[in-house]
């Protein structure tokens, strides 16, 4: 919940500053929408895989848990790859967070989400390790449930980023 408040603040900042493009480009000039759609679908699928992992958890299937959380991890990693690629492209073209308030707000908001994804990936890795090591104990089950909530929450935040940053930006709002 407090994480939601963090993202709310970043969204508020973005909402206020996204018109301040200074000498730099505006959103619609730098956003690659097909790329963003692919990112969104990848993250959505990873959320689904996470759900399948939770089902495996309740069916007490150690293999199922490791398989589906492994798929979640892989898809999350691919998503991150796409996002980092996008950032690298922007920076190489000279549109870094130092160029304008809009870009600062953009990189902070999307970057923070990306950082949360990284933390989520680390957590998934650790949990797969724990499942392999101690099996589906009570503690492991509880932590996997919390992890799945965290991962779904990240997907929800991404929906809002996708809509408010990329889609609204492309509409020149």
């Amino acid at each position, binding site marked *: 919940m407090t994480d939601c*408040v963090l993202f709310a603040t970043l969204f*508020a900042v973005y909402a206020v500053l996204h018109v301040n493009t200074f000498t730099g480009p505006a959103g619609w000039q730098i956003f690659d*929408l097909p790329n963003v759609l692919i990112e*969104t679908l990848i993250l959505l699928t990873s959320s689904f895989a996470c759900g399948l992992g939770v089902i495996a958890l309740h069916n007490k299937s150690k293999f199922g848990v490791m398989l589906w959380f492994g798929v979640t991890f892989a898809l999350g990693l691919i998503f991150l790859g796409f996002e980092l690629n996008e950032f690298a492209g922007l920076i190489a073209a000279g549109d870094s967070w130092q160029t304008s308030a809009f870009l600062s707000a953009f990189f902070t908001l999307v970057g923070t989400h990306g950082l949360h994804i990284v933390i989520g990936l680390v957590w998934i890795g650790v949990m797969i390790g724990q499942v392999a090591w101690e099996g589906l104990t009570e503690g492991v089950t509880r932590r996997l449930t919390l992890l799945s909530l965290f991962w779904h929450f990240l997907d929800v935040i991404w*929906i*809002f980023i996708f*809509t*408010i940053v990329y889609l609204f930006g492309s509409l020149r709002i």
Partner: protein
Amino acid sequence: MNEEIQNQHFEKSLATYVAGFILSVTLTLVAYYMVVDRVWSLTPWTIAGSIAGIALVQFVVQLFFFMHLRVKTKPRWRFVVFFFMILVVLILVGGSIWIMASLNGRMVMTPDQVNQYMNDQVGL
């Protein structure tokens, strides 16, 4: 806390997740193509309103199907905390936009004009 999370009576069946997934993908694609293809020659603001609505619907879908947040969610406080969070978010985001827009609207003079005014009026 363990029992509370695990004793919730919700359907963690495959169907729930598949339904949620299909709904989410559909909503995402609809929103995306509304923007990309500028469907039905709507004004940008109409499209914006629609995709904002679609995003909210998808938010609820994900909450309901993936995160199992129902009205009958137990423990009860989980549902209440969620609504408090929504309230805080609305105040933060809505309040910031309102205040900053109001400040922006009050900036009638440019910074140079402000300086000039202060020089003339107060001798600063």
